[in-house]
């Protein structure tokens, strides 16, 4: 999964696409309306949706837009490290580095101790075999 910022950027791009799609849908699928007292003109190339479908689709588009917007807000709120300044981050990094070195040293020592023990066991077993 991409990181939060990329998710946010993608969501923003999707929102833009939705904006476009919504306008496009409305402008291509609406019913022709009479202008003043002139008769309604039908465009041969346009096939409007019937009013009920159109309304439902419109509501759905609006809902999707709101959802996307909410998703963007959620992503913003969950951005990592909100409320942490750069200096704090640097300090944290430094202390972590130290901690890591200590842990690494401890780990090495433990491994050595274990190997030592295993070796002793090995010699003991070998001596038993020979007996």
């Amino acid at each position, binding site marked *: 999964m991409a990181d939060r910022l990329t998710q946010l950027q993608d969501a923003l791009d999707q929102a833009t696409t939705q904006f476009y799609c919504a306008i496009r849908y409305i402008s291509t699928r609406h019913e022709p309306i009479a202008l003043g007292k002139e008769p309604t003109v039908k465009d041969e190339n346009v096939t409007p949706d019937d009013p009920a479908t159109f309304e439902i689709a419109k509501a759905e588009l609006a809902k999707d837009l709101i959802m996307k917007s909410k998703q963007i807000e959620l992503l913003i709120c969950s951005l990592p490290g909100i409320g942490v300044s750069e200096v704090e981050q640097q300090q944290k990094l430094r202390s972590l580095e130290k901690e890591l070195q200590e842990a690494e040293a401890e780990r090495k020592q433990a491994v050595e101790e*274990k190997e030592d023990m295993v070796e002793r066991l090995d010699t003991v077993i070998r001596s038993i075999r020979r007996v």
Partner: protein
Amino acid sequence: MSAEPPGPSSLVSSAFPAPPPFFKHFTPENLSAVKHHKKLGTPTDELPPELQYLIPPPPPENSYRCFGDSWTIPDVLPTLPELGITQLYSDPPTITTATATTATATTTPPPSNTRALSLLRLSKSLLLSYLELISTLSLNPTMSAEKLTDLRTIMINMHHLINEYRPHQARETLILMMEEQVERCRRERDENLKAKEVVKELLGALEGVLGVGLGAGGEERTEDGEGAGERRGVNGEEARERDWEMWRVLEGMR
């Protein structure tokens, strides 16, 4: 770059550009001639033109072009006013054309916090602007250009803010990774210590079974002979019993 030939631009910008025409100048004679000139210390402009191509141009200093984009040295994120975009998220978050103050609000306590807040506000204005665009379109489509630029500005502002946030996230990710590593190190240490304890216990048990002090590994060699000698003295029944017990211990170790 001074050494660039005045060839057609397609040479530079096509996906797989042909080699620059001056590669033909790299003949052994020319190369030795250049070496000769270098020894003499001839300035580059005084060389014959075909030899000038052989001398690499100086590295770019301020900006360079790569994949059709120009890049600055050092690589910095240009501020919005530099790009000719109105910056919407300076300290007053209302939509004002405040181009004077730059993006780096280093004085305010945590920049990431204000950045997230600005993002939130921008996302709200984005939706609102869209709503305005729709109503403008429905009433007077010719007026929509203005709203469209508004939307564009807001979008660019948001993307810019997100990109500004990137280094922050990079550090945050690094912190997380390091924490994980520390955790892993500690776990490994604990597991090793546990394994050590198990082995130690086994050793103790073995020693108990054999009835001999098989203490340190170093003494093992001498004990080997002693143990064998001692064992010969024990009667067969007892030895077999002891062997069985030992094998059981070894079974359990696996």
